[in-house]
């Protein structure tokens, strides 16, 4: 680029030169021995004295150096003046200017260093004027340069746009035949789209149902705690996450097959010279049409499902549940979630999409998928897989999505590495290779797709059989709500409340059992969840401390056999977790020092827990309490689903000490039984306690000063019923996903399989052998995921039974309910595969004829 020759800020520069020259000639430059001298006067004085040495006082080296440097200043000013004259003559000698600035800068630095004489105002002002001139000039020059570059860039852009327009000029409109071609093609290839559409329908239907359930269950029971993960919505949110995850991978899987099936058409269009934008439009038209059809059908299907669920939920729990009405937000959320699925699924297949769009990529024949080959990588993958599975088993604490994902990740690594190693191993020997060549064919070209398929199918089976079947089953076998609440009211009474308690038996003929208690709290509660980590405040957990004698009395009062001696020592606890079989084994506290895993027995040992007497803000200290043993049983009632209000049993002596040290608070555990007709009157009588001890409820919104059976029964029934519906829905969703995945896999592979078996037929393979081989091939793609999932599910079921301390009776009940459902699931999957194999055999026979 040719440099610009224009002189910027010329008048201003000339003015600055004139000012500098004027200052140097006529303004005071230096004050020496009381005399104010201009620059010419200074030089004249030096000259008159016979040089600098004679002019300055003997030994004043600073003055000598300063005056010597004044020559530099003079030179700078002379050059500056020349520069000014050249500017007047419109000559641009920027170098001269730079030399003068530099020299003056050197002079100023020297003057500041030596300060051999006092300065007149001309000395700094000359420098200042030069500096301002330099800055303004540079600014104008640079901005002019930038503007010029910008103008040139714009010009180039305009030229490129014009060039682009010229080169890509393609006037006119496509004839009506174009739309007809797309439509006819779409109609003809409906089989290729149908699975894609079906997948979309399933996803959008699941999302509509999930979103609708979320809406319906918002107010289903009285105390919903979204943040702390105790409520139904938490379960739903997690399930929606899983639905999204499954939807994304299922859609991506189907999408990859869809692209493959459409590739030959796109390739043809590309060779015939279709414009890339037109090809993109065509792809998008097909894609968007399929998606819109899926969305609409899925939403209709989902809505039908929702109405069915709504009908069941509203009818069955005898009006316990409060079902919220459905609104447009249900569909908006479903559409947003569906878009998220599509976005991710498209992103996963983005490379394939680009390949289609690229005219050169599209004509390439379908390429062999890469098989991991490097030993280092395969060994690493195997070790990683084994480690992940090992961690998911040894670190198993409860039924959780996280644990399931960990296990499945391990399976994914192993599937990748073992499949690859197996191919490597068989290829290493000719004998093995030729023996295994037929089953290997689908793996040689479709390695990634096959691994992805096996993983997805395993995940669907595993989520269904492990996660959701267990949650469903544990709710199905849970004890009746009435059995979980043996008393009508449970009151944690203060000493001052004694009058109220006495009135209960006196006025309402209630049977009141009173036991001494102390309130014990842990720092961060048991219902603490990852959602709570988002908010800074997580409420503490509140428990009821009782003595061992009271513990025995409670057993007796409940009509149970007296338990063995607990043999508790100082600061030792026996925890009684009050919850039913449907709830995960709770930890007493989430902070350090709370329950830890005992890997040897894989059961929570509740080693120790940080606990204090009273409320968290009470003056007592946090102490480490050793949890000697624990049990899961109902003694006073399932007041907080095992999350709080559990019983902490202390030795009698320890309890006495605690009661003495307790900083106030409730001291009497009152268990009230009354006649049904007196229930509401007692409720009214107890109500003032909530106002009296309002502080207690403010610490944690879940906590109540007293608990009434009726409301809790309502909550338990409605919650359990909703959970059964919810888990049942997700279980069914995964069942459908698994069936659909197997169908998709074999549907898209049909053409390849038919061609292959036609070839086998031509090469003389007997039909019986062909039928046997296809059976082996197809079962090979359905049985391993099922076997892995069943094995994993059985293992984790056993671990969970152990952790939740299920009795033999409970396990028997579980097997009779959830076990049967699981068995039906297996039968359904096997029948489905059998049917698919049968259909494929029929097709092969027909094709070979």
């Amino acid at each position, binding site marked *: 680029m040719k440099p610009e020759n224009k002189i910027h800020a010329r008048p201003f520069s000339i003015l600055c030169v004139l000012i500098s020259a004027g200052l140097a000639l006529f303004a005071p430059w230096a004050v020496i021995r009381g005399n104010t001298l201009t620059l010419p006067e200074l030089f004249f004085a030096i000259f008159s004295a016979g040089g600098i040495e004679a002019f300055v006082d003997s030994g004043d080296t600073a003055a000598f150096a300063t005056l010597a440097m004044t020559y530099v200043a003079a030179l700078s000013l002379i050059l500056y003046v020349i520069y000014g004259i050249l500017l007047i003559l419109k000559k641009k000698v920027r170098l001269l200017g730079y030399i003068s600035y530099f020299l003056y800068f050197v002079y100023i630095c020297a003057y500041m260093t030596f300060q051999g004489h006092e300065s007149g105002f001309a000395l700094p002002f000359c420098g200042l004027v030069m500096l301002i001139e330099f800055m303004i000039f540079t600014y104008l020059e640079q901005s002019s340069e930038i503007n010029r570059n910008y103008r040139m860039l714009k010009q180039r852009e305009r030229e490129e746009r014009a060039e682009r327009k010229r080169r890509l000029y393609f006037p006119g409109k496509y004839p009506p035949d174009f739309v007809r071609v797309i439509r006819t093609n779409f*109609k003809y290839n409906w089989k290729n789209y149908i699975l894609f559409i079906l997948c979309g329908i399933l996803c959008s239907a699941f999302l509509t149902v999930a979103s609708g359930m979320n809406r319906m269950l918002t107010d289903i029971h009285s105390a919903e705690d979204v943040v702390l993960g105790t409520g139904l919505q938490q379960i739903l949110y997690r399930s929606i996450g899983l639905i999204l995850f499954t939807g994304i991978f299922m859609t991506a899987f189907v999408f990859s097959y869809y692209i493959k099936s459409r590739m030959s058409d796109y390739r043809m269009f590309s060779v*015939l010279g279709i414009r890339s934008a037109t090809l993109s439009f065509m792809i998008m038209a097909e894609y968007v049409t399929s998606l819109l059809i899926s969305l609409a059908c899925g939403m209709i299907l989902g809505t039908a499902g929702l109405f069915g669920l709504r009908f069941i939920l509203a009818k069955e729990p005898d009006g316990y549940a409060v079902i919220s009405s459905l609104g447009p937000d249900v569909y908006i959320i479903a559409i947003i979630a569906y878009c998220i699925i599509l976005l991710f699924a498209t992103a996963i297949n983005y490379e394939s999409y680009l390949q289609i769009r690229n005219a050169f990529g599209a004509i390439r024949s379908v390429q062999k998928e890469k098989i991991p080959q490097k030993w280092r990588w395969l060994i690493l993958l195997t070790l990683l897989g084994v480690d992940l599975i090992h961690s998911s088993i040894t670190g198993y604490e409860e039924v959780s999505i996280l644990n399931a994902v960990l296990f499945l990740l391990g399976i994914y690594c192993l599937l990748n590495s073992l499949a690859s190693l197996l191919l490597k191993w068989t*290829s290493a020997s000719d004998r093995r290779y030729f023996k295994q060549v037929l089953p290997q064919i689908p793996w040689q070209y479709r390695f990634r797709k096959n691994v992805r398929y096996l993983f997805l199918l395993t995940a669907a089976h595993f989520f269904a059989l492990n996660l959701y079947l267990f949650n469903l089953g544990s709710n199905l076998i849970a004890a009746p709500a009435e059995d979980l609440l043996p008393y009508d009211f449970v009151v944690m009474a203060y000493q001052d409340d004694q009058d109220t308690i006495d009135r209960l038996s006196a006025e309402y003929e209630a049977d009141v059992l009173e036991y001494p208690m102390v309130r014990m709290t842990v720092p961060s509660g048991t219902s603490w969840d990852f959602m709570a980590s988002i908010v800074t405040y997580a409420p503490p957990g509140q428990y009821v401390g009782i003595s061992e004698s009271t513990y025995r009395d409670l057993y007796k009062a409940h009509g149970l056999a007296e338990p063995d001696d607990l043999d508790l020592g100082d600061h030792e606890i026996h925890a009684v977790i009050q919850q039913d079989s449907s709830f995960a084994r709770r930890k007493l506290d989430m902070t350090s020092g709370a329950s830890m895993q005992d890997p040897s027995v894989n059961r929570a040992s509740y080693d120790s827990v940080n606990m204090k007497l009273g409320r968290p803000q009470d003056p007592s200290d946090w102490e480490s309490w050793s949890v000697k043993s624990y049990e899961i049983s109902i003694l006073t009632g399932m007041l907080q689903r095992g999350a709080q209000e559990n019983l902490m049993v202390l030795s009698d002596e320890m309890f006495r000490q605690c009661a003495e040290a307790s900083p106030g608070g409730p001291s009497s555990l009152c268990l009230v039984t009354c006649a049904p007709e007196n229930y509401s009157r007692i409720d009214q009588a107890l109500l003032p306690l909530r106002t009296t001890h309002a502080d207690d409820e403010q610490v944690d919104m879940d906590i109540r000063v007293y608990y009434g059976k009726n409301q809790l029964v309502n909550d338990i029934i409605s919650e359990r019923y909703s959970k059964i519906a919810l888990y049942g829905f997700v279980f069914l969703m995964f069942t459908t996903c698994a069936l659909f995945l197997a169908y998709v896999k074999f549907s898209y592979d049909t053409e390849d399989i038919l061609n292959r078996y036609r070839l086998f037929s031509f090469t003389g393979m007997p039909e019986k052998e062909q039928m046997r081989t296809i059976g082996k091939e197809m079962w090979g793609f359905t049985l391993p995921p099922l076997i892995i999932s069943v094995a994993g599910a059985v293992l984790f079921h056993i671990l969970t039974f152990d952790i939740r301390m299920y009795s033999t009776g409970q396990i028997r009940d579980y097997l009779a309910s959830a076990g049967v459902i699981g068995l039906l699931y297996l039968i359904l999957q096997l029948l489905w595969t059998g049917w698919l194999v049968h259909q494929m055999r029929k097709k092969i026979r027909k094709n070979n004829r």
Partner: protein
Amino acid sequence: MCILKTEHLIRNYTMTGASAQTSTIHVLKDIDFEVKKGEFVAIMGKSGCGKSTFLKLLGMIERPTAGAIYFDGMDTEELWKDELADIRRRRIGFVFQDFYLLDSLNVRNNILLPMILDKADSQVMKDKVAELAGRFGIDHLLLKAPYELSGGEKQRAAICRALINDPELILADEPTGNLDSRSGQIVMDALKEINEDMHKTIIMVTHDPYFASLSKRVVLLKDGKILDTLLRQELGEGFYQKVFEYTTKL
């Protein structure tokens, strides 16, 4: 007047072997080639010598690894993707061994496809398809689906499609490869007619020495290089004999 020209044309493919090591396969090695307008050139060579790859490069379906391809004086390397698509659509007609007809469309729409993609006028399309179908004897098959046609009929439909936009160059990849000798002869007659009467330039890849000898020039490819070029004009009556001899040597 030269319609197609290649200079130092190289095409390599990278392959990943079983041991995860990549190797480069040199399919075409430094090919200089020229085709004049109105020529009928046959490219021969044994399987795997790079004939089809060469044709794909000439048809701008693939990009060369190195070297240049000039189409009607234009360096195709400097052309944009859509410009190449325009050339493929308007100035080149493709005939494939596997016909590549869309089963979803009837024969008429298959033939019209390049015109539809070129935003042509409906009436012009109608006239053009009628003219070409009549010329190649498939006017009675226009409303049929491709799968209802015989191999020879399919190939004639494909030839009509290749000619529909009146291109200057026809690239035929083994056009008789999937046909019996009678159908093959009909297709070859059609190609000869296109070359001689319609003055289209044809580049045809073939295995068959007889069909190759119907062209005006035979280019013999071996191991990615041009081994020799035989001219009908020079060899006269002995052209077929020479082509046949070379084929056996290849």
